[in-house]
């Protein structure tokens, strides 16, 4: 078996407690060694292992999910009754702005990044991403950016301009607190994380594939994640421009959005939505990828029309660039623009519909297993279809003009983002949990989690269609009994239902936490998962659970799409075996028999594994460089000398990074007293 870097335990704990004063001069930094520990907090803070980075992404994203959820709960409490008094108007504005910002930028995107980081190298048979240190940089930039953004709550209040922060409404006269500054700078920072991650993961997908892993053999999640990274790559700079202009406007008195000077208020809207519409696909495509993995496994059938799913995903990626102005139909673009964007918007429903058909036909005639992951995947298909259909009603411009800024819009995008994005992410959690943590999440609590969430979301967002069509505007902090209407369409009733639904949904999330606790608490009775709990199909399963630091004992050679399936099963079509007569089955012409278990396959891989596996050493610099960014950002808001301090840290980190060798020095692993003999251990 291969050993990659020396585990700390082998040196009797000496590595754990490091005393700089005894370091040899040959240590990497003279007085500081490379952080080579494989246990303890250092092994996480300075890691460059894509799996640890993925887990940290996920943990931080879930924390922000809870923060955003609390914000959502407060919003719904405020609106439960007429003339709500839970929040002041000012706090209400901050709450819905920060709820959306947190959920989109600090939960869904990083959660998708968590899966992408963890799964892409495993799915393509690589030992890590293309640039492991850049990967660590992405993580820490995101973490510091998210924390920075949320410190605004304690420093004069959060941003209050709505998540699209239309300028000039977000300029100082209309939003005098520092909230918008925190928002703009915070998104700028997390944008850097996304951009760096995009460059890294695209390079990984294109260039780090195992032998035989052609693009059309890549697992579908990796494909969708790659499309998302392309969207991020090209969309992030657009919002970067807009955010810079907003920052300069607010902090350095630039005039980009000063209408008195002749500024065009549509400038921000265009820049925001040129970014913002691809962003919608950035949110849902990773989940589409996840359910495209989950559905075949639990239907015991290959994904129906893999090339169609791939190309429709890519098509969504492209067409997504041509529809941004449908967010601006009510802003007076002029009839020609509205007509063009209206048609383009209807067109993008086509590739999305292709995907839904593919998923449905994947399940058609399959032997369905209703595990929690499968339930979430089916939930996505149903809920996203509802959101997609209300989306088509927006593409019709006259209809959209009526719906704009009402709760109908809120209903639509929650069905899309929660129904399409979040349900898929939960499906991914249940599906890959045994891969990542070696234990299946408790199915009983998982099913509670699913049903409470799905009922909760429909109770919450379903009534919003009604109250929206009744004319309740979004972002109003109160509604009045006087205008609530009568009978079935009474706003009071449906607002109360929505609020109750929110708490049903919250209970569902609590059940998720219970499932995690029950699975992992000390003394938990949940047994370790088998290597192949779901009879899975793709390459990430062809290693231990959780995977070793180097992922694969030897680099796999890939011969087919669904490589693991084809290693486990042999096609015995034509041999004397009972036929499956049902013509609807996609595999009607193929009969497979199981010839190997995953345990056997992995044991064989282990036996033939590489002698020396060489992984890059951890590094201090990513987290140091990431730390410099919020320092600079605080400097922009409060005092310019902090900018200089932050910049100095950044320069130090960049030069440290550039001069750092790939491998830790031998002396980094050893306290100097231990000498040669134990050094050998590092090379077993």
């Amino acid at each position: 078996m291969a050993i990659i870097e020396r585990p700390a335990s082998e040196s009797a704990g000496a590595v754990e407690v490091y005393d700089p004063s005894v370091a040899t001069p040959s240590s990497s930094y003279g007085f500081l060694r490379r952080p080579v520990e494989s246990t303890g907090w250092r092994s996480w803070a300075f890691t460059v292992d894509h799996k640890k980075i993925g887990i940290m992404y996920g943990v931080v994203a879930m924390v922000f999910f809870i923060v955003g959820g609390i914000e959502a709960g407060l919003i719904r409490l405020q609106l439960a009754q007429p003339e709500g008094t839970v929040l002041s108007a000012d706090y209400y504005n901050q709450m819905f702005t920060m709820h959306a910002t947190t959920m989109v930028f600090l939960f869904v995107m990083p959660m998708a990044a968590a899966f992408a980081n963890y799964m892409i190298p495993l799915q393509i048979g690589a030992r890590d991403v293309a640039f492991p240190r850049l990967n660590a940089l992405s993580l820490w930039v995101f973490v510091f950016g998210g924390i920075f953004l949320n410190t605004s709550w304690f420093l004069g209040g959060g941003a209050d301009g709505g998540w699209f922060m239309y300028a000039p409404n977000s300029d100082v006269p209309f939003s005098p607190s520092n909230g918008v500054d925190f928002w703009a700078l915070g998104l700028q920072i997390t944008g850097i994380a996304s951009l760096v991650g995009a460059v890294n993961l695209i390079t990984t997908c294109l260039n780090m594939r195992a032998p035989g892993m052609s693009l059309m053999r890549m697992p579908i999640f990796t494909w969708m994640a790659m499309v998302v990274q392309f969207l991020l790559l090209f969309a992030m700079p657009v919002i970067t421009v807009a955010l810079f202009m907003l920052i300069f406007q607010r902090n350095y008195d630039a005039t980009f959005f000063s209408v008195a000077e002749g500024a065009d208020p549509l400038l921000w809207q265009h820049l925001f939505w040129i970014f913002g519409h691809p962003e919608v696909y950035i949110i849902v495509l990773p989940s589409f990828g996840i359910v495209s993995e989950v559905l075949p496994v639990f239907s015991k059938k290959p994904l129906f029309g893999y090339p169609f799913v791939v190309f429709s995903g890519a098509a969504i990626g492209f067409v997504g660039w041509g529809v941004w102005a449908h967010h601006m139909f009510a802003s007076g673009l002029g009839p020609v623009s509205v007509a063009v964007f209206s048609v383009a918007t209807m067109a993008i429903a086509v590739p999305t519909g292709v995907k839904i058909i593919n998923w449905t036909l994947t399940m058609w005639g399959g032997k369905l297993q209703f595990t929690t992951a499968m339930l979430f995947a089916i939930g996505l298909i149903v809920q996203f279809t509802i959101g997609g259909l209300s989306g088509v009603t927006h593409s019709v411009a006259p209809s959209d003009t009526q719906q704009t800024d009402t709760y109908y819009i809120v209903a639509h995008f929650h069905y899309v983002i929660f129904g399409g994005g979040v349900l898929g992410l939960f499906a991914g959690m249940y599906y890959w949990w045994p891969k990542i943590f070696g234990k299946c999440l408790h199915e009983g609590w998982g099913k509670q989690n699913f049903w409470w969430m799905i009922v909760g979301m429909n109770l919450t967002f379903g009534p919003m269609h009604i109250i929206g069509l009744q004319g309740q505007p979004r972002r109003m902090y109160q509604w009045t009994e006087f205008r609530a209407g009568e009978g079935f369409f009474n706003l009071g009733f449906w607002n109360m239902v929505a609020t109750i639904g929110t708490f049903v949904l919250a209970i569902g999330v609590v059940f998720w936490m219970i499932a995690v606790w029950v699975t992992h608490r000390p003394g938990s009775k949940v047994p370790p998962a088998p290597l192949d709990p779901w009879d899975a199909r793709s390459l990430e399963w062809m290693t231990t659970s959780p995977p070793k630091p180097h992922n694969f004992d030897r680099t796999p050679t890939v011969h087919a799409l669904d490589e693991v399936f084809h290693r486990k099963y042999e096609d015995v079509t034509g041999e004397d075996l009972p036929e499956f007569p049902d013509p609807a089955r996609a595999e009607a012409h193929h009969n497979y028999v199981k010839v190997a278990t995953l345990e056997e396959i992995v044991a064989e891989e282990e036996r033939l594994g590489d002698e020396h596996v060489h992984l890059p050493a951890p590094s201090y610099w990513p987290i140091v460089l990431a730390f410099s960014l919020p320092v600079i950002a605080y400097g922009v808001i409060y005092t310019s000398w902090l900018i200089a301090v932050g910049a100095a840290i950044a320069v130090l980190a960049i030069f440290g990074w550039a001069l750092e060798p790939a491998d830790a020095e031998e002396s980094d692993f050893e306290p100097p007293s231990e000498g040669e003999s134990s050094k050998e251990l590092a090379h077993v």
Partner: protein
Amino acid sequence: MSDVVKDPESDAVDVVDPAGEVAADRGAHAGDHHGGHDDHGHHTSLGLSNVKLAMWLFLGSECLLFGGLISTYMLYRNRHSDEVGPDQLWDIPFTSASSFVLLMSSLTMVLAVSAINRRDERNCRLWLTVTATLGGLFLAGQVYEFTTFYREGLGYTDSLFSSSFYTLTGFHGAHVAIGIIMLLSTVGMLAKGRITGDKGETVEMVGLYWHFVDVVWILIFTLVYLIPA
């Protein structure tokens, strides 16, 4: 593996035959930590270097950044006071000269890459230094131009035109400044032998960035300076 799974096409396994030391060694490398020795274009699926791929992706992304800044300027270029607009401010001969300087720095940059590919480190360092000097000259020209405009009454906050002009050219100037730091750092690291990766590739990457900055100026020179508002 072929013991476990029957696969007629498993001859490709030879490539990573663990019995062969070379192949085992090949399979044993994880991610390209430094953009250096690992990825000489031979370990990767496309046969291309990771760093180069990443650099081109980054430059593709930068197109959208400068596109946004240029569009904002184009939208706002006419929105200024009657006294200080492009017509009063532009000094075409001066800007042409500094554009020419930046253009020629692209030539010296490509000569540096050419030198390092011949393993001629001495000349490479020389050309890199010349490139950085020309970049510095361009930047000095920009500082001079900004101060002149400011004296003539064009403050950053004065009009939509001034904000968008200074922001666009300022972003470009910042890119040039970063490029100069990269060039000089490369010279220093070459001299001290501290480049952790492939030397030729490092110089080539700095070059790609530098040429891109030059290309952006080609656009700005025409769209901002030569085409009348």
